[in-house]
């Protein structure tokens, strides 16, 4: 145990390197023999140690080729430079490879790029040309079509046939008739409402089915309007009476209500009407049936007033639309073949 603690092989190594077994001192020899078997083992170890060192001197050391150095330095550069530079380096290698056999790649890439650029330019130019034509403002001289010149050198109108003029007049008249029929139909609807109120049966006329000249239709319409106005006027007179009665009634009712409030007396409304001081002396007691009739007449009167306004409006429109068809000058122009 104690010997193992004092064991130091490095001391033996120095002895092996410097001295042979015979050159060792007695103390050193005793120390060596404590760790080695005999002299032969010591000499073998010494020979081995010295041989290794001398052989290393004799042997030419290995030298790394320059490619290893360049690869290592390139690895260091690649690590240090930014990523975009690495990307650019790869682009450079792609565009100009070391081996000439690899040139087909950049050639193909450039050819494809050239084709794409050419196609793009052509497309843009065509599209741009169309755009330019659309956007360009050109002063175009408007040339009027020359009228045919007669034998005498003056411009001559082309002769219009009588058949073409008739067709044009008929078309114009039919268009005007349709417009007039529509107006009359509206008017007819309005008159039928009046008939329903007044009880008359000849006011509503089927104007659409009627095939009369426009002048006669207009005249007939005017006559119907006049007759209806007369009827409506009579209705207004009776209605006005009712209204006055209603007003009197309402005033009386109000006075009675005020009076009733004062006297706290409840009396029938129709009685109060008779006792109103504002009521005429010749008045009579109004029954419920009379009141209902008067009220309906009043309603009819107000409705009629409103409808009359509409009627006047439609008559005015109808007269305007009729004026084109009736216009003698227009018809004469059409007949002349203008």
């Amino acid at each position, binding site marked *: 145990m104690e010997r193992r603690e004092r064991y130091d092989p490095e001391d033996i190594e120095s002895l092996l390197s410097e001295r042979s077994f015979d050159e060792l001192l007695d103390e050193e020899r005793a120390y060596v023999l404590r760790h080695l078997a005999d002299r032969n083992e010591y000499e073998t*170890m010494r*020979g081995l140690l010295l*041989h290794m*060192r001398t052989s290393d001197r004799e042997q030419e050391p290995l*030298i*790394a080729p320059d490619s290893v150095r360049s690869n*290592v330095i390139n690895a260091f550069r690649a690590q240090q430079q930014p990523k975009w530079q690495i990307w650019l380096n790869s682009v450079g290698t792609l565009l100009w490879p070391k081996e000439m056999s690899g040139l087909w790649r950049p050639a193909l890439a450039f050819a494809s790029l050239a084709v794409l650029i050419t196609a793009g330019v052509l497309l843009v130019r065509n599209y741009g040309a169309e755009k330019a034509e659309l956007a360009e403002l050109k002063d175009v001289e408007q040339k009027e079509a020359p009228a045919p010149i007669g034998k005498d050198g003056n411009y001559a109108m082309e002769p219009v046939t009588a058949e073409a003029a008739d067709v044009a007049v008929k078309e114009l008249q039919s268009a005007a008739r349709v417009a007039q029929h529509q107006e009359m139909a509206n008017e007819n609807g309005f008159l039928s409402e009046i008939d329903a109120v007044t009880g008359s049966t000849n006011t509503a006329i089927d104007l659409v089915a009627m095939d009369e000249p426009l002048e006669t239709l207009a005249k007939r319409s005017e006559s119907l309007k006049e007759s209806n106005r007369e009827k409506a006027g009579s209705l207004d007179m009776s209605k006005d009476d009712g209204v006055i009665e209603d007003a009197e009634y309402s005033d009386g009712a109000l006075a009675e209500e005020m009076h009733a409030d004062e006297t706290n007396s409840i009396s029938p409304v129709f009685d109060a009407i008779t006792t109103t001081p504002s009521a005429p002396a010749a008045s009579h007691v109004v029954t419920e049936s009379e009141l209902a009739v008067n009220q309906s007449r009043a309603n009819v009167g107000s409705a009629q007033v409103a409808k009359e306004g509409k009627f006047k409006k439609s008559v005015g429109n109808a007269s305007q639309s009729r004026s084109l068809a009736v216009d003698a000058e227009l018809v004469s122009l059409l007949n002349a073949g203008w």
Partner: protein
Amino acid sequence: MALFGKEYGKLSDERLMELVVRGDEQAFAGLYDRYNRRLLNYFHRMLWQDREMAQDYLQDLFTKLAQRPESYDPSRPFQTWMFSVANNMCKNAYRHNEVVRAAAVHLRNGIDREEAKEGVGVDRELFRGRLDEELDKLDPDHKATFVMRFHEDMAIKEIAAAFACSEGTVKSRLFYTLKKLAERLKEFDPKALIPNGTARTIRS
């Protein structure tokens, strides 16, 4: 401060490594120039005297250093750190090529023994071959310790730092390795192996 080219040779390994961490290419090249031969020979001895493999490992080592210079521990001497990295790479190579190595050793065994029997006296070349063969049979740590000590001429302290072990462990490994090799190579005449005046001072 800008450094000129001449000053790189005077800088210590550790200082150059600091510059490498900062991205100094010349400092990196300086370190490569200082250590490429030693490391190449170390790989050559450790990796079954395969020159191509030694070059590949040398390139891999410096590529790793270029890619991750920050992995260097500034508290450790650069030389021992580099050799420890190289030794770890060799250990990985041993693990991956264990079967191949066994086959190669078996093949060389038969050939070399026949050559030794036929040889007259001690052939140094034959002895070198046998020595390498016996070294390959050793435990990787013992072999690396032996190579660092007697081939790379590294001090006991540096070897201990490279292996992260005590100096006593290194001394013990060296003694037993030397003793084992002497026993296996006792067929050679020891006196014939000793050249005249080859003794030299050994770094402690």
